[in-house]
């Protein structure tokens, strides 16, 4: 699969490493080249400096042939906008967005985006631990 990850955060870098190790074709984007230091030494994919909200950068990353687009920047709004571009403009088959704010996450899920709210997921896990 060709996978584009926007945002080389800890989660983004970790995910890029995992998918790359499984043999997928991974391109990770970030506006800050320094953030690529988080990628594992063994990463064989493409690390691209660019803004995933801009057409030119997305095309350079190969969005037109991408099977998967994941946004893992620190900003909910950036993630949401990038994913909507990937889904509605470039028709990438699988698009997943990280959204910290659970309320916003619920809204965009209802609007048809595939979303993950770390806030909700981690809170649930912690609650299970406490009660378990």
């Amino acid at each position: 699969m060709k996978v584009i990850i926007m945002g080389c955060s800890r989660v983004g870098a970790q995910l890029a490493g995992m998918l790359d190790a499984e043999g997928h074709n991974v391109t990770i984007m970030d506006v800050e080249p320094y953030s690529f230091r988080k990628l594992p030494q063994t990463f064989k994919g493409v690390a691209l400096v660019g803004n995933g909200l801009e057409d030119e950068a997305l095309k350079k990353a190969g969005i037109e042939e991408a099977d998967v687009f994941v946004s893992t920047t620190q900003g909910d709004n950036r993630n949401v906008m990038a994913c909507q571009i990937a889904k509605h403009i470039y028709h990438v088959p699988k698009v997943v967005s990280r959204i910290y704010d659970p309320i916003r996450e619920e809204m965009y899920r209802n609007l048809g985006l595939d979303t993950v709210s770390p806030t909700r997921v981690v809170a649930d896990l912690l609650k299970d631990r406490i009660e378990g």
Partner: protein
Amino acid sequence: MYIIVVGGGEVGYHLSKILLNDGHEVLILEQDASRCERLTEELGAIVHRGDGCEATTLDSVGTGRADMLVAVTDGDEDNLVACQVAKHKFNVPRTIARMTNPNNETIFKALGIDATVSSTNLILAHIEQELPSHPLIPLLKLRSGTFEVVEVKVPPGSGVVGKKIGSFRMPKGSIVLLVIGKEKDPFIPTDDTVLEAEDEVVAITSAENEEAMRAILSGK
């Protein structure tokens, strides 16, 4: 009308001031505390500190009864989300987003934002009006996006100089609305109106015929 303005920067401030003067009920959402204080001093108690993209904030300022939400922060993605939350969670009838990157216009439209304002495009349009080398100036894009109001200055060497408007074939769906002569008052032309060099012609045309229109009037 009850209008919520997201972003209390310079654009938000001046916009709110005008809207208040026009008698509208205005509320500004701004995240920065000191900026909120300054706005309150200048405009009165119409400022609420908070994130205009958060549903809880929007709920607390009564977004459900708002007639319009205008997002004018300097982040395009923040403006998009503020408008989408207003629209989908609070059914605000009309949302307007400011954008810095003019390429976002089509994206915002596709994602359901009612209107967009690009300061970059506005400045560009003004520059183009000032540039004599630009023969066809887009004045206004009509809401549907298929028709445009354009202005053309007839250059001295053009083949249409001295000819009647009715004598040359306009592209389909195009019509000349107004002729502004060099020393004449603007007037609505007929088929018998003879064009002169330096006449400014205001016409309506479809986007795909823009090029053909330019070619006919500039005589190339």
